[in-house]
């Protein structure tokens, strides 16, 4: 009587086993066949491929240096080095830059790269770009071609940050005949060119066979996008990808503790996780209160609890890869007694503060620790997570309707934008700092370093914010994969020297 049921179960089981077995065999054969292909897992997928009209870190991360090249780029130590320009001269008044260009470069549309493309690309930032970053090009008075391999750029005033900014997306060089469909068809001079893009899934690059420099070792690179951190980790565990570009949850790294299979690379970024203060509004317009908060926070404990100890304590808004870095972690050592004393001095008892954070993992984790540490000195913190980006941008960033917030300021050299502009959401207004920034930008290299150092110190002493930690760059890769960018110092994830593991 029950036989048909038993048979059905048996058939189902057999089919399942057969399918699973098939999965097993084809999976392993697929892995060994593709030696010159590598896939890298990312979390944020570009909305489109046009960073001239769409903001967001994902587009330059994928395209800059890999597909588009600039005249200059940043090396792993954060130094400006030649790329499409072999060298450059700076006039004595520091306003004229003469770039000597490589002359064996072609775009992937077959057109030769000349000074005309440089002039075209620089001018196009001013005329056609839509994103706010384009303002970095405002300082350029004129860009001109001297001959095919020489381009001359004149600035309205001396600016060190301009050359630096030329390493970012605004310095990307476009072909004069290659800007018709930037959102879908990027044309650059880089080591890779776009093969295909399956929205919601992956971007595939193939090596540019006419590349002027060292040809990439990997013929095909797949940038795979994952919405979910667990899915990203699983993909590496199951061989779906070869590299996790940035680990989203540092405590998950223990899954990759098998050193015969994986290696974990920890480097630095330019992302300062900042406990930002609303400097213009009571009670945080009072320096004593801000200082009390800095004393109240045990940064080492915070980093250990919130981010599994991965990352670095900085004590200022400057990452170690900037030339004006100075270890200021001892400026405000953890000292709850001192914090209470300062609060009493400021006449504050039963202080209540609104901590309005973006709903991002590091901010949520850090906020809990901040709350409990501030409670220890008698400050009540009310944590309010806001959806990121839209809600946070609107409430905290635009309206500055907050007391404290926590956000990872990832932009390189963003100290000037954040503390040099009194209208920025921290509302920090210090003319002395603004003047130092301006002088540093127009001075010689030495003057720049000295000026920036001084400004960073004043900001830290002023307790304009509290610098929780420097965000780590955590990469996990299949054992033996080489050429991964250890430090994340620029906007791009440089794939050019990648080489797959031999295994």
């Amino acid at each position, binding site marked *: 009587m029950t036989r048909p049921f038993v048979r059905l179960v048996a058939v189902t089981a057999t089919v399942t086993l057969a399918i699973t077995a098939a999965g097993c065999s084809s999976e392993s054969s697929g892995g060994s066949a593709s030696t010159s292909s590598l896939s890298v897992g990312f979390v944020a*997928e570009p909305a489109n491929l046009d960073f001239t009209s769409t903001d967001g870190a994902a587009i330059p991360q994928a395209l800059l240096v890999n597909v588009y090249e600039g005249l200059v780029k940043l090396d792993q130590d954060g130094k400006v080095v030649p790329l499409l320009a072999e060298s450059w001269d700076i006039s004595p008044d520091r306003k004229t830059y003469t770039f000597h260009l490589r002359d064996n470069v072609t775009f992937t549309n077959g057109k030769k790269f000349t000074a005309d493309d440089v002039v075209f690309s620089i001018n196009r930032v001013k005329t056609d770009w839509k994103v706010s970053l384009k303002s970095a090009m405002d300082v350029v008075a004129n860009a001109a071609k001297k001959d095919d391999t020489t381009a001359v750029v004149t600035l309205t005033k001396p600016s060190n940050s301009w050359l630096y900014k030329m390493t970012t997306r605004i310095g990307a060089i476009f072909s004069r005949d290659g800007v018709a469909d930037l959102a879908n068809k990027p044309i650059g001079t880089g080591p890779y060119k776009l093969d295909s893009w399956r929205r919601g899934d992956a971007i595939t690059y193939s090596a540019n066979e006419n590349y002027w420099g060292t040809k990439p070792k990997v013929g095909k690179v797949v940038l795979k996008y994952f919405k979910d951190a667990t899915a990203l980790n699983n993909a590496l565990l199951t061989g779906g990808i070869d590299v996790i570009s940035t680990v989203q949850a540092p405590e998950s790294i223990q899954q990759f503790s098998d050193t015969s299979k994986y290696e974990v690379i920890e480097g630095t970024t330019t992302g300062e996780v900042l406990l930002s203060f609303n400097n213009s509004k009571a009670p945080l317009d009072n320096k004593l209160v801000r200082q009390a908060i800095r004393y109240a926070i045990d940064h080492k404990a915070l980093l250990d609890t919130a981010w599994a100890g991965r990352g670095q304590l900085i004590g200022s808004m400057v990452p170690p890869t900037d030339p004006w870095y100075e270890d200021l972690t001892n400026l405000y050592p953890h000292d709850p007694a001192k914090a209470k004393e300062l609060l009493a001095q400021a006449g504050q008892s039963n202080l209540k503060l609104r901590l309005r954070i973006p709903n991002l993992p590091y901010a949520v984790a850090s906020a809990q620790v901040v709350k409990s540490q501030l409670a220890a000195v008698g400050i009540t913190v009310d944590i309010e997570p806001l959806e990121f980006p839209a809600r946070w941008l609107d409430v905290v960033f*635009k309206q500055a309707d907050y007391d404290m917030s926590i956000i990872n300021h990832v932009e390189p050299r963003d100290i000037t934008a954040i503390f040099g502009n009194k209208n920025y959401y921290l509302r920090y207004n210090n003319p002395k700092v603004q003047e130092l920034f301006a002088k540093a930008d127009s001075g010689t290299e030495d003057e720049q370093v000295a000026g920036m150092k001084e400004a960073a110190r004043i900001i830290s002493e002023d307790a304009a914010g509290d610098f929780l930690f420097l965000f780590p760059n955590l990469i996990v890769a299949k054992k033996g994969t080489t050429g991964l960018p250890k430090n994340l110092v620029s906007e791009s994830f440089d794939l050019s020297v990648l080489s797959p593991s031999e295994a």
Partner: protein
Amino acid sequence: MGLYLLVRAAVLVVSTAVASVVVFAVMAVLPGDPAEVALGVNATAEAVAAKRAEFGTDRPLVTQFLDWVAGLSTGDFGVSYVTSDRIGPQIVDRLGVTLWLVLFGMLMAIIVAVPLGTAAAVRHRSIGGLLLSGISQVGVAVPAFLAGILLVFLFAVTWQALPSGGYTPIREDPTAWFQQLLLPSLSLGLVQGAVLSRYVRSAVLDVMREDYIRTARAKGLGLYRALWKHGARNAAIPVVTVLGLQLATLLIGAVVVERVFTLPGLGSLLLDGVANRDLLLVQGTVMVLVVAVLGINFLVDVLYALLDPRLRGVR
């Protein structure tokens, strides 16, 4: 029959119209300006104003709504704020993934539920039957995404038997396509199967007590054969109803499961759209989902009428 269908169709049309108003209104009150999100944190006021004009979000809400509905009625979903691509083709493209997922999930649910539910009904007095009931009870309580996480852990991470996610279109590599869909549809199907099996069980139990089954058995038919020949059609009516309702939950469950398995379906399109404040895209996607759910309900009503002749006479 004709009147019955007419009334059902009218309900479908009115619900769709109401849904369009609700969907639009919800998006309109969602905080966050698409123009600001698109241009980034340091955009100037002029740039934002220009972007708003480009998007058309500076116009009165009523105008925007009427424009949107007029577009929808001709199948035009508009242009995405973020990608500047036409939204219709994007939805169609992603729907391809989601439909397969839902279809496979449904099939698995049926494969699980019909034998399990029938066996549980037939042996409802034995330990085995109670055990089957218990298992389905647990299955009902598990959300699909949790089942997905567990399945990934077992099949993908521990046994390395199936991929943990990703999607390859069927025309590129049918084997990879099938393998990649297997775990996500299983996580949808197992949970739905557990729910469904309880309905199958009670439907079969009801039918078993009917006189015509007793008659058939008295004539010498085995229980399963009698159920199949005489009871299946009757037991199918409540099951089909539930199946229709479940199809709707499956569609919604798929939205979440797609995230666990990184499938580029409608769900991931929707979530990305919300994060980027790509309002037109979100509105379009939600409308497609709403219409799909309403359409399914309509079909269930039709099927209901076909299966049960008594209903046709009612109206």
